[in-house]
């Protein structure tokens, strides 16, 4: 009847990365949307404030993209207590940390989503966090007089996520649950861009609407193996060997490791498909979940 048609929200990784700019606050979910992360590095973005954790954060720090990390965890997993590039950059004062923890970060994101200037939280009372992060105010609650922290709203300019499936209209469905912070990041951000393993039909979405975790992503990218070298639930496991290669490169004393690693895996491949070709289909297929 209407002459119009419903607008699709599909886009490719190059166009999606083109909407990002120096100085933005960019939130990165778990598992990390690595196709987009590699394009941030490829585009050589600078002075970013990132909400990220672990080796994803480390890679962006290593590539020189990060000015400030809103970070609750920068460990490397498997025997790497602290992510190496992050550790070095913070010790040298090159990257500042908005010191927080999961409950505090969640509260700040919730406040943004709810259009509130702050939310109160108890976790962190008695710790050094409000000293180290003066954006956190110690308050007395107006009802019972208890001591709490007031966490200011945290509003990313854009949130980047990786999920299992979506339709072309931005209805995203995770397989087996999104990373714990992902939905908070999506609700708090101005825009949300979601990579998925697979595009499904709108009918498939409607057949199980309760599984829709994000109802209207601003852009959807078809990126199979797009979280590699991380896992993607229902699709593949983490490529721990490649992550260990990264850590070895980042830890090399002569500083030669990182440029080679970043060049090979992030800067040289022009598209996600080029990256996958470089990794090789056999290696990708070996990361099965069964």
């Amino acid at each position: 009847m209407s002459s119009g048609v419903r607008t699709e929200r599909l886009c490719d990784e190059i166009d999606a990365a083109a909407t990002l700019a120096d100085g933005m606050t960019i939130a990165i979910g778990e598992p990390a949307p690595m196709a987009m992360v590699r394009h941030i590095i490829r585009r050589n973005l600078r002075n970013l404030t990132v909400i990220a954790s672990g080796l994803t954060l480390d890679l962006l720090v290593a590539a020189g993209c990060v000015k400030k990390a809103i970070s609750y965890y920068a460990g490397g997993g498997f025997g790497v207590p602290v992510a190496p590039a992050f550790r070095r950059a913070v010790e040298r004062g090159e990257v500042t940390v908005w010191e927080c923890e999961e409950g505090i970060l969640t509260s700040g994101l919730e406040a943004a989503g709810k259009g509130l200037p702050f939310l109160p939280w108890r976790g962190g009372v008695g710790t050094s966090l409000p000293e180290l992060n003066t954006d956190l105010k110690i308050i007395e609650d107006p009802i019972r007089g208890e001591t709490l922290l007031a966490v200011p709203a945290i509003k990313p300019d854009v949130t980047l996520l990786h999920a299992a499936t979506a339709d072309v209209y931005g209805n995203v469905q995770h397989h087996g649950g999104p990373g714990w912070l992902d939905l908070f990041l999506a609700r708090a951000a101005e825009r949300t861009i979601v990579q998925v393993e697979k595009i499904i039909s709108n009918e498939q979405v409607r057949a199980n609407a309760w599984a829709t975790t994000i109802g209207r992503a601003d852009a959807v990218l078809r990126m199979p193996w797009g979280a590699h070298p991380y896992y993607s639930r229902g699709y593949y496991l983490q490529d721990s060997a490649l992550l260990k290669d990264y850590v070895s490169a980042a830890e090399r004393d002569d500083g030669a490791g990182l440029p080679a690693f970043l060049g090979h895996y992030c800067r040289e491949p022009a598209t996600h498909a080029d990256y996958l070709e470089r990794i090789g289909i056999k290696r990708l297929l070996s990361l099965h979940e069964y």
Partner: protein
Amino acid sequence: MSIDCSVSELLTCFLARDLNDGEELQVGVALPIPEAAVRLAHLMHGPNMELIFLGARMNVHHLERVPLPAFGWDNRVVRWTESFSDRGHRFDQVKDWHRRVFFIGGIQVDPFGNTNLIGVGEDYSRLKFRGPGSVGTPTLTTHVGRYYIVLNSHSPRIFVPKCDFISTVGWGQGGADARTRLGLPGGGPKYCVTPLCIMDFSEDEKRMRLRSVHPGVSVADVQRQTGFPLLIPDEVPTTPLPTSRELDVLRSRVDWVGALR
């Protein structure tokens, strides 16, 4: 009326025309005119509209017929759901509600579009009439991009100089900055529609102003049924009638049972 339609159909078509493609249209319980209006707008010119009924979000632009419900958690109405706006988090993304449009009723409405669903009477502990309560209207009207006040009747009992209690703030004490002074981010009430007329709010004072009268209704009729002086422009047009195409779509694809006739 020169075109054969009911007042409910007239209001449905008027509201539908005022809705823009890309908006989220949320309708609560017991508001059949807005329920029909959002469906009509969606079919007529809103391929990117999203309809939200009790937390179920859907786009049904592709359907031949979109039933006007017996509302409620009724799978016959919400079976096209794409996501649930309330998957535990109904109010966790209000920051994006500037794109959302809402509709409210009221048992009292004042000249600044403040409304009352709480009750009537001077003493709250002994109300003369206990209303249904505020539902979600305070939160919705605080944040949505704009909303419409939709009333089933028009009388001095409803349109009062001052509400006994205020459940939703429209334009507060008046003035263009009435809402920003209170820190309310939403866009406030745009129109108040009734069986007699359409009213809006003046740009400067944000007082209720007569915008059009329905066919067969005079300006004097309206003022007589309103318990405070309305702003009345020199020329008050007649509310625009539905086109035959609008009526056709409404009757054949939305309200084929004739609930609004």
